């Protein structure tokens, strides 16, 4: 399958806010620099320390899995890296931007420009077709012109094997098909970074392998950085770097060659 020429058109990347990197980082460049991150919640009056001094650098084009038992802080870390939440302390740069200083609006604009999300439950918008779901970030986030949108969306749908299902609504799609659409949506804005929280948890074995292969192929062809929070051994097996989190701390780092 011919893949994603349109995603490599660097000149069309939206200008990210506040001096973000802009343009896909060359292999080896640092996309994420987290320094001594902590996150403390108050739950029912009890202080919960979800992250305790996590430091990690992520290079562009990485395919990294964060693993660990439930409550170890994987999702919290991903939320911080995705600018969905703010650390209690520590430093965090994503694509060269100090994201701890972004307000709500700036954080939304930054996510729209630099970060793609793939959710465990797919989180497609039910009233939109597959094509419209993929197109949504270009329409509602980046205000791209229609001609550019259509080309990009159709190429991505072709790449994830969903071109023939483009007019179906999420309710008419299988779990695997939904996740393919979600991946296309995450990539359509050409983000530096895609964060995927348990992306295969709701998929059967065969579909999960297909989805993992698809994401890896995207990484290989486009150079997007993929970070996963997962328990899934199939993703762990495909990751090139696996970090283990326990009690909010990084306790292991294992390099693999997939």
């Amino acid at each position, binding site marked *: 399958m011919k893949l994603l020429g349109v995603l490599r058109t660097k000149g069309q990347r939206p200008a990210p806010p506040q001096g973000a990197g802009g343009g896909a980082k060359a292999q080896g460049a640092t996309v994420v620099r987290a320094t001594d991150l902590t996150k403390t919640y108050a739950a029912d009056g009890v202080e919960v320390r979800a992250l305790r001094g996590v430091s990690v650098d992520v290079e562009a084009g990485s395919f990294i899995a964060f693993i660990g038992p439930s409550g170890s802080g994987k999702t919290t870390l991903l939320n911080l890296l995705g600018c969905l939440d703010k650390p209690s302390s520590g430093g965090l740069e994503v694509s060269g931007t100090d994201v701890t200083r972004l307000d709500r609006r700036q954080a939304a604009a930054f996510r729209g420009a630099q970060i793609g999300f793939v959710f465990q*439950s797919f989180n497609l918008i039910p009233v939109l077709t597959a094509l419209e779901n993929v197109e949504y970030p270009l329409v509602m986030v980046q205000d791209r012109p229609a001609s550019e949108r259509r080309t990009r969306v159709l190429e991505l749908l072709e790449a994830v094997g969903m071109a023939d299902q483009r007019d179906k609504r999420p309710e008419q799609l299988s779990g695997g098909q939904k996740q393919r659409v979600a991946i296309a949506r*995450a990539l359509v804005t050409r983000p530096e970074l895609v964060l995927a929280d348990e992306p295969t948890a709701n998929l059967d074995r065969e579909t999960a392998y297909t989805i993992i292969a698809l994401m890896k192929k995207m990484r290989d062809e486009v150079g997007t950085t993929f970070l996963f929070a997962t328990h899934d051994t199939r993703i762990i097996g495909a990751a090139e770097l696996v970090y283990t989190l326990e009690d909010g701390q990084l306790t292991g780092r294992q390099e693999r060659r997939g």
Partner: protein
Amino acid sequence: MVNVVKIAVRNLLRYTRRSLLTVSLIAFGVVFVLVFVAMAGSFKEAIVGSITDNYLGHLQIHRRGYVASIESLPLNLNIEPAKLAEIQQALREVPEVAGASERIKFNAMFSTFVETTGLRVTAVYPDQEFAVCPKLPTRVAQGDRTPAALARGKILVPELLARGMGIKVGATVVVVATNKDGSVNGKTLLVSGIIESATGPGGRDGYIHFEDAMEILRMPGKEITEVAIRLRDFGQIERVGRALRERLEGGGGGQAALEVHTWAQLSPFSTVARLIDMMALFMKVMLIAIVLISVLNVMIMAVYERVREIGTIAAIGTLPSRILSLFLVEGVLLGVAGAAAGVLAGAAIILALNVWKVSVRFGGSLQLFVLSPRIDLFEVLVASLMVIVVSVVASVQPAVRASRMEPIDALRHV
């Protein structure tokens, strides 16, 4: 914006039954307001038209103090010749005046030679009176309906008395009255017609010719009780009334000043008319409440049901302002759809009421009030705009709530 509207429409269609119910409720409210305003306006217009075209005219001029003691029809508060000339001159200078009728009103004894009773006499110049009160002929139940019915020596007898005293058209009767000096005089008159009051059989008001009244009352010169005025344009009443007041109510010269009254100041129906206006206002307030509650309810539900969806679109970078606009547009669309449906249905009902000719007859009155409900474009615009503005207001709180959601909390929502 087109995409925001497209998504908003799809979201409304997602819960078709609920959206349709809300739109129907709003439409029902709009229909209710428009039809009520149209019917009430038509009713008011018919009654006001009846009052002014039958006996009051649009404006009346009296000597100061007369209206306060109008029930006794005092002759000592008549307008004297010098002031009458002043009035006539003033009316000639007002182009909006279509006609003016000079009247003498007095209490009299009315006799068939067999029976005698009291009568309230209005003495007029027939051509003037028919010009100012064009519906007068429609009240003539029997006899001559032309101005000739009020030629000298003739009388239109109130139906109540005619029936009670067995008076027929062509009969001879006597009218006896006391003049302002206290002397009594009478005149024999020929019954030219039987007339009912403006609201049906009843009342003791009869009509004779002005000069017959002067003869009965032994007036040395022309005095009048009042001048009833008809304008070319009903809508000019207040303005012309003000102008005449400025001109005539100055007084001076030792004579009592004059008073200019509009029909509304002279008729108790003006209170009913104000009540009708108040009811129309109340209907509009009800409409506001219907729209506010129904749209607010739908939008609160919409936000509550779509928390995770809001979290998703916020996570992938949708700005809070755009999330706000998504929900505001949904609410506005509900209002627009409801207003449009209501205006169409309301217009259809008003049209149907005009085709079916809804009519009202008071008691046994000869006059049939055919209601012609119609609605001004302005009223339609006001009702529609009100619905849309209230829809926006009702959507603001849920939309702000949606736009302020933290994506991380919204995504965790079960």
